[in-house]
């Protein structure tokens, strides 16, 4: 009788599933990372790819359709659209990543602490999250944008103030459920201090779920940055940004519709890449 393979952790290649093996088997993650990598590579190597500078104007050649010289045509000031599009990727992706790090960490930490210790600390943090949710999001964004002056600084401050909530809520829920499980209780009986338990035991379990949420939240952040650009309180000219490019191009929608459409697709492309990575990670961890 041939020996049956029924251990689910073995994949069809017969070897024990290493982390790489499992990543290889989730294509969504692979394609997502591939798409994101293409964008990042383009953003990094744009000076070598395109001869133009992002804000290099040519007042005699404005609003030209896509041509050999300008692959995506020129905008209303005669600047090469393709170059601006990729330099805008630099700005927007940089802000997206930087503006996520601090809220991610604070949210993660506060969530775990609230979930683990419960009682009054949990109440304070839930109260804080409720207050921030009760705030109309755009009121905070606009006020901070005005107070700190438009541009990147305003966006960083806003997202440090508001961005942590979604992570706190997710991690608080997860930690609260982990806390009931026996192995956390046993760790407590060993007299491990709370903080060590959180870091050694709860963090590794909460982190995967949090990273999946991080991916979707990053897409939300990118869309927020772009919408701020549209409302005219986002990134200030001349730094290229997809949001301002869409709103600038909007007035030429009938004559040069690609001015608004192309940056819009760039946002959608990044959105797809990031949410594919998010889905892929979620599938990966669900399989474990």
């Amino acid at each position, binding site marked *: 009788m041939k020996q049956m393979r029924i251990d689910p952790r073995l994949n069809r290649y017969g070897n024990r599933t290493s982390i790489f093996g499992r990543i290889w088997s989730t294509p969504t993650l692979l394609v997502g990372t591939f798409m994101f990598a293409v964008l990042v590579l383009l953003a990094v190597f744009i000076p070598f790819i395109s001869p133009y500078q992002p804000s290099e104007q040519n007042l005699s050649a404005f609003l030209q359709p896509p041509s050999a010289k300008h692959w995506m045509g020129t905008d209303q000031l005669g600047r090469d659209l393709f170059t601006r599009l990729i330099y805008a990727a630099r700005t927007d992706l940089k802000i997206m990543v930087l503006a996520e790090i601090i809220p991610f960490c604070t949210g993660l930490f506060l969530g775990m602490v609230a979930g683990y210790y*419960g*009682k*009054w600390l*949990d*109440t304070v943090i*839930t*109260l804080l999250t*409720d*207050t921030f*949710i*009760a*705030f*109309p*999001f*755009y*009121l905070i964004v*606009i*006020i901070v944008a*005005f*107070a700190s002056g438009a541009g990147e600084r305003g966006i960083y401050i806003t997202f440090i103030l508001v961005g942590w909530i979604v992570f706190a809520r997710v991690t608080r829920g997860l930690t*609260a459920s982990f806390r009931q499980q026996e192995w956390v209780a046993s760790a407590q009986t060993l007299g491990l201090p709370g903080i060590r338990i959180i870091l050694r035991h709860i963090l590794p379990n909460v982190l995967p779920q949090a990273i999946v949420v991080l991916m*979707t939240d990053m*897409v*939300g952040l*990118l*869309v927020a940055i*772009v*919408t701020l650009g*549209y*409302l005219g309180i986002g990134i200030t000219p001349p730094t290229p940004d997809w*949001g301002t490019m*869409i709103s600038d191009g*909007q007035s030429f*929608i009938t004559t040069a519709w690609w001015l*608004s459409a192309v940056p*819009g697709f760039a*946002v*959608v*492309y*990044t*959105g*797809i890449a*990031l*949410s*594919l990575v998010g*889905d892929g990670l979620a599938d990966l961890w669900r399989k474990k």
Partner: protein
Amino acid sequence: MMKLSKTFSASAGIKSRGSSLWLVIVLVRALVVILCVTTAVFFLIRIVPGDPAKMILGEYSTPEALESMHHALGLDLSLGEQFLRFLKILFTQGDTGNSIISGTSTRELIADRAPVTLLLIGLASVFAIIIALLLATLAATNKDKLPDHLIRIFPTITLGMPVFWVGLLLILLFSVRLGWFPVGGVKEGWVGTVHSLALPAITVAFSQIPTLVRSLRAQMLDVLESDFVVTLKAARIPRAIILFKHVMRNAALPTLMLFGVNLSYLIGGTLVVEQVFGIKGIGSLLFSSIAKRDFPVIQGIALYCAISVVIISLLVEIISWWLDPRTKGKS
């Protein structure tokens, strides 16, 4: 202190729901949230540079005119005095004062603008729920077949679509070129209003559907795998009844909480859609009041948003508790 704090964190302990103590706690919590929001907004908008008097009198206003306007609006008082005066008006007349720009009372302004926004959110929620339920059921029932992939790809794409960009595309396609919908503003009469809110409601629903579909699909997949569905299937009960009567209800419950959070985000979130579609609702009023530093109106809207968000989260908590016999029975 221990006992109070335990019950105080009401949302953690499901057991304590339904008792009158729970109700008191939740109301106190709601009040604290509303107070925090109102006070925070009061001071935040005064710290931000920009002076309403200059926005009324324009760029050619003389210092004397500005001075007299400041005095008339009481803006020359210290922040503390202004706050006390604000609280007095709030508790005596239940209003946050008259609009600096148009002179009408904020309560009237909001009462006149709120119906449009609430109708917009209502319509959008109905669209979102119906479409999300249909898509989720379609995806869950034939997992890993074509519809499931299509429906799983759909949120991935729409997640990255800025709402204003979607709005613009819809206007260009359906209003300007095809003329099926009015381009913007709200027409008189019920039919006119619904007709003009249709497109904006779809745009708002567009931003809600991805998260709802994902959550509903996941819930439905779990429920479809549960034993009681197998029992019903074994009993050869018609598929439709199993799906709509049993599966959907069980899947909807957890998504209700998510829907509650989405809804509270929407109260302030329709601002962009109202700008794009030229709808004179609370969102566009908020945006223009901030631009013109119309302090009383900004505070009034922040208060309105805080109250509605608190009410919604309360309603969602009560509904989900009432709907779920597992909790109702116990206490």
